[in-house]
């Protein structure tokens, strides 16, 4: 396990006061919050920032962290000395609502037991009350095609759990999850009983998986509808043509009406994501000009210029 330099994460001095820490946290949260920042690593970065704030923004935790961290630098191998926390009593961190936010191994080793004790309403050494297990939340990224045909995907989840002796263990679980046909990005798959185990005989919590589609090189997704760009030759657009369009369900034939221009949007009804109300597939036409790279092609363009008397800037 590596030592985490929470001061460095927040970009503050070790002597920073509460106000400095709050300001630094707010500034970084605005920048890296995954609801605002679409970068792939925004969530991981925000977790790190939240974790640093959870420790440095809390007097008790900060004092404990400063004591174990004397002389340690970020990235160095680190093991907390046995019984390091005997002098501290944590009053259960902000922990918060969902409780699904994951923490680093480093945080879990230092504060994990106290945090979980607080969150489950179970004090170490106290009697266990019956309580339903917590719900877990995770994201699952699947190919768009899964929504057309249904699929089974294996996912791996990691969750810290306390064993009988009170030690924190990272438990790895592999789950085969059925991806229902017709599911859309932003929807959730509920797996009953796959959350945290219940206490005192109460039922386990559930696992909710938020679905996201992998970006697809061909189709763009908006809710139930798909968008695709289709390249057509000038004569196909001008004279009309019957063309093949690839859908996630296979090829379909589509008529390009005569007199189409680049950017024209054609709808293939019901060819979007399947369901009670299936989505549509929108085809955006892109007229592609043949290159004028030999005499024959140049002659054809010149003839068009003469015969058509066409001024694209006339209107």
């Amino acid at each position: 396990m590596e030592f985490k330099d929470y001061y460095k994460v927040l970009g503050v001095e070790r002597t920073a006061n509460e106000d400095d820490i709050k300001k630094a946290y707010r500034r970084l949260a605005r920048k890296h919050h995954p609801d605002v920042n679409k970068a792939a690593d925004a969530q991981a970065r925000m977790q790190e920032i939240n974790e640093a704030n959870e420790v440095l923004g809390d007097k008790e935790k900060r004092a404990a962290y400063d004591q174990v961290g004397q002389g340690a630098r970020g990235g160095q191998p680190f093991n907390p000395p046995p019984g390091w926390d005997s002098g501290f009593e944590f009053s259960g961190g902000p922990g918060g609502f969902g409780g699904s936010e994951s923490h680093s191994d480093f945080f879990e080793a230092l504060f994990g037991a106290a945090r979980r004790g607080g969150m489950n309403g179970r004090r170490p050494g106290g009697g266990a009350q019956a309580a339903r297990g917590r719900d877990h939340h995770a994201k699952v990224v699947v190919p768009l095609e899964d929504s057309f045909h249904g699929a089974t995907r294996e996912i791996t989840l990691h969750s810290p759990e306390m064993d009988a002796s009170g030690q924190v263990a990272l438990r790895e679980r592999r789950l085969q999850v059925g991806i229902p046909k017709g599911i859309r990005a932003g929807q959730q798959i509920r797996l009953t009983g796959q959350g945290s185990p219940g206490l005192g005989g109460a039922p386990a919590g559930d696992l909710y998986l938020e679905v996201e589609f992998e970006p697809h090189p061909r189709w763009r997704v908006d809710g139930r509808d798909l968008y695709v760009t289709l390249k057509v030759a000038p004569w196909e657009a001008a004279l009309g043509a019957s063309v093949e369009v690839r859908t996630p369900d296979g090829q379909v034939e589509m008529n390009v009406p005569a007199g189409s221009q680049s950017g024209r949007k054609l709808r293939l009804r019901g060819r979007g994501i399947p369901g009670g109300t299936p989505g549509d597939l929108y085809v955006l036409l892109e007229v592609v000009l043949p290159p004028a790279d030999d005499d024959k092609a140049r002659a054809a363009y010149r003839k068009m210029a003469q015969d058509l008397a066409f001024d694209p800037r006339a209107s």
Partner: protein
Amino acid sequence: MNRPASSTTTATLSLGVCVSDDHALELQAFAVACGVDEAFVGQLVEEGLVQPAIATPTWRFGGEELGRVRRICRLQRDFGANLHSVAVMLDLLDENDRLRVRLLRAGERLP
């Protein structure tokens, strides 16, 4: 102390259901899934920040609403924002999403 020990269980098949339509959640189950109390969900609906997917005969909520309430909680917690501020943030984020989708539909690749 060593790195927390890892244990692995073999893959189990779990079919699961999509939280919508027939499997939309009643208020109580929805509040539990969001990690909030029912009164808070009521307040969000009253303020127009969340709408039940199915309004009659009783409120029922789908996965999109679940994601939205969790987002509201994140914004409240991470920015110390009150509900009025969260409402403005959600409006701006929604607008941003709509514009992103329009760009995407038009075939623009976003960074």
